């Protein structure tokens, strides 16, 4: 940022201007004294002219500073300042007249010194007024800048500068060169005077005020001009300050531009409302096209839309009908009319407009002008608002005159309506996007949490190898597996499957883990575990949900395992001795299906002995039900065969075989539409 100098230029200029004025006065008084006493004062004309020029320059600097500081002020404030300066100068002049009239031929009245003082005072005020108004006109002319105008103004300024120093060549004689210079300056003034683009921006009231102010300014100008002519003809003066090309040119410029402005403002009065109307429409359009802020609602957009439509068409009354499907209400759906009249008019409108199904897209976008035969209202305009291909609302505008809606009104109302619909659509899409993003974030968090629920390490002793794998269909899922070391010789394995998939299954999976981790510490047997688990889960499962589970308690000393199955996919048991695999068959109802103590009659446990080389494969139904494009499922038999053929491999390898086979079976076009999990145990 360039810091403007701290020097109060305005004050310095003002000070210097006053100083110069005093010098002018002094010089003239000296001259008069010399003339009275028939002495040669020794002060040449040039001194006065130089002082005069300096005075003009300093006054110009003072006012230029004022204008620069008040750049943002509106026209009227600045014009008013011009008026007040003018009134001050003119009244000073008139007052001087009056004083001299009163004084008449008295001693004081004829005193040349006093007369001179008054002359100088009036000269200063007149110059100040003219220079101020010139700068004011400059501000107005350059309101809408383009290259041409700026160039023209610069030519004018240079010419004025020339006129300022012209006095040295011309000595203030009204000869041909003087008149020539004056004419040139007047012509340029007229050329500049067509730049009146600031006038349409005034509203009706402001235009009247402007007319008054311009009238006053021109009045003051005329008064001051006559005074100048008067005092010029007096002949009493030694040096005529005011027969100056510069000042006269300014008189001309001020008057010409003032006159043009006055006339144009006057003739613009009848049509000023059109411009104001256009301005209001543009503002309304901008309001409608702004994104709906978080604090605002769709209702507010419709509110603004209704108001805009009414004002754009000068309607006498209007209402808005909202599609009953919408969840929000419009607080004031009726404008300037009551419910009964609305119902009357509604019945006069075409029947198709009663329904909320848009007949066709193009039709619905336009506004429809309708003639109605009502006592008070003779024409109506119906506007449809379409959002995302469905009808959001209908606006009906009515007027007391026939054919009250012209093409232009229909056009602008259509534009408003479309813009409002876009705003509403955007608002809804944005909300959806935000919700989706939030949802995605939540899912990611859930995924992280759930990953932590499955064990990283599976407890096992040296006597068997174990591995497990789980894959969710969505970000989170309902499959569960876990292990627990009771003591050095007893281990528990469990696999569970919550019905369904996704977030609600994931929640229940977490509950299952809690139940398992608590109950298993009690050292209870599998069937009892299932019974107690059923009791616990019955309290927290949702209505349509159940959990299946398979549990194994392995005794490595006795080489046996005790097993219970609660509705879960049967476990595959490969017996090394028979070199064959079979699914363990044992009855058991899923958890959460019978939510009372009678559940214990629906579950059992059985103990089996195992041998070295035996393999247990626990699964969930996702593996079983993975299917091809044809609809054929992976099925029990394939798993059986894979295990039999790969029985010599380690659990990890066997697990991989099964998963690879599953994916190969399903192929690119098939589906594994569920969570799937797998646990392989190989006894050494």
């Amino acid at each position: 940022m360039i810091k403007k100098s701290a020097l109060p230029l305005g004050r310095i200029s003002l000070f210097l201007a006053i100083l110069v004025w005093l010098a002018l006065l002094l010089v003239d008084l000296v001259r008069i004294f010399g003339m009275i006493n028939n002495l040669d004062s020794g002060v040449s004309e040039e001194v006065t002219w130089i002082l005069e020029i300096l005075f003009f320059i300093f006054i110009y600097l003072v006012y230029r500073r004022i204008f620069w500081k008040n750049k943002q002020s509106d026209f009227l404030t600045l014009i008013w300042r011009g008026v007040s300066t003018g009134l001050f100068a003119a009244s000073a002049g008139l007052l001087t007249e009056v004083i001299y009239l009163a004084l008449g031929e008295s001693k004081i009245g004829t005193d040349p010194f006093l007369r001179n003082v008054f002359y100088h005072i009036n000269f200063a005020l007149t110059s100040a007024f003219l220079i101020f108004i010139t700068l004011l006109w400059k501000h107005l002319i350059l309101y809408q800048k383009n290259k041409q105008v700026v160039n023209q103004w610069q030519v004018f300024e240079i010419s004025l500068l020339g006129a300022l120093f012209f006095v040295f060549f011309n000595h203030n004689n009204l000869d041909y060169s003087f008149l020539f210079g004056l004419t040139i300056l007047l012509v340029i003034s007229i050329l500049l005077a067509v730049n009146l683009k600031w006038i349409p921006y005034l509203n009706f009231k402001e235009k009247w005020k402007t007319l008054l102010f311009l009238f006053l300014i021109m009045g003051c100008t005329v008064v001051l001009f006559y005074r100048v002519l008067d005092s010029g003809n007096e002949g009493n003066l030694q040096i005529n300050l005011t027969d100056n090309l510069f000042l006269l040119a300014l008189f001309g410029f001020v008057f010409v531009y003032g006159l043009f402005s006055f006339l144009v403002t006057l003739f613009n009065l009848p049509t000023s409302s059109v411009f104001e109307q256009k301005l209001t429409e543009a503002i309304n359009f901008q309001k409608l096209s702004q994104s709906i802020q978080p604090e605002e609602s769709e209702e507010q957009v419709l509110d603004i839309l209704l108001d805009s439509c009414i004002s754009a068409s000068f309607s006498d009354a209007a209402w808005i009908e909202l599609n009953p499907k919408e969840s929000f209400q419009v607080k004031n759906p009726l404008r300037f009319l009551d419910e009964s009249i609305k119902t009357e008019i509604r019945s006069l409108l075409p029947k198709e407009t009663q329904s909320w199904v848009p007949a066709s897209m193009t039709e619905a976008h336009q506004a429809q002008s309708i003639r109605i035969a009502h006592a008070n209202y003779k024409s109506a305009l119906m506007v449809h608002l379409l959002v995302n291909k469905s009808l959001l609302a209908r606006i009906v505008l009515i007027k007391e005159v026939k054919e009250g809606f012209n093409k232009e009104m229909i056009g602008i109302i259509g534009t408003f309506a479309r813009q409002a619909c876009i705003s509403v659509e955007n608002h809804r899409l944005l909300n959806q996007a935000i919700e989706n993003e939030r949802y995605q974030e939540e899912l990611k968090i859930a995924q992280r949490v759930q990953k932590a629920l499955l064990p990283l390490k599976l407890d096992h002793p040296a006597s068997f190898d174990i591995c497990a794998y789980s894959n969710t269909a969505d970000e989170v899922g309902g499959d569960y597996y876990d292990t627990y070391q009771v003591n050095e010789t007893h281990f528990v394995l469990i696999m569970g499957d919550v019905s369904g998939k996704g977030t609600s299954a994931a929640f229940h999976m977490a509950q299952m883990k809690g139940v398992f981790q608590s109950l298993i510490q009690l050292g209870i047997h599998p069937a009892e575990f299932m019974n107690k688990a059923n009791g616990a889960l019955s309290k927290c499962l949702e209505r349509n949900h159940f959990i299946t589970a398979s549990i194994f308690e392995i005794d490595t000393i006795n080489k046996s395992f005790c097993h219970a199955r609660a509705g879960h996919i049967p476990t595959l048991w490969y017996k090394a001795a028979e070199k064959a695999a079979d699914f363990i068959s044992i009855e058991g109802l899923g958890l959460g299906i019978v939510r009372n103590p009678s559940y214990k009659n629906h579950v059992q446990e059985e103990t089996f002995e195992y041998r070295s080389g035996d393999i247990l494969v626990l699964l969930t139904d996702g593996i079983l039900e993975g299917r091809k494009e044809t609809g054929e499922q992976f099925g029990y038999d394939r798993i059986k065969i894979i295990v039999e053929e790969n029985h010599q491999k380690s659990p990890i390898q066997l697990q991989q075989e099964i998963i690879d086979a599953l994916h190969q079976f399903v192929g690119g076009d098939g589906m594994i539409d569920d969570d799937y999990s797998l646990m392989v145990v190989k006894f050494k």
Partner: protein
Amino acid sequence: MLQLERTKEGNKDILRLIGEVDASNSVLLDQSMQEILQQGATFLLIDGNQLGYISSAGLGVFMSYLDDFSEQGIQFAIFGLNEQVTEVFKILGLDRLIQIVPDKSTAITLGNEP
């Protein structure tokens, strides 16, 4: 894809399932059964002849009505299931709580048993 067809034969309401029941349409099954119960059915049969597959969501729907059936004394049976689907019911253990019969005639005679 799931289609549901309701018919009535005498005092028996029959709901035919056509297609597959999974998580996305299990709510339709739920709604249908809700409607049937609200209309005061006393004997509900599910025709599963054209049911290709049922997921745990679908099973959950049936299971959630078991209490209602026993409280209101409504007779309930499913018939015509293919092998695969029957197997699913058996593994879960639902076959001990829901009557699953091979065909319609057997299902109808259930009502005549004392």
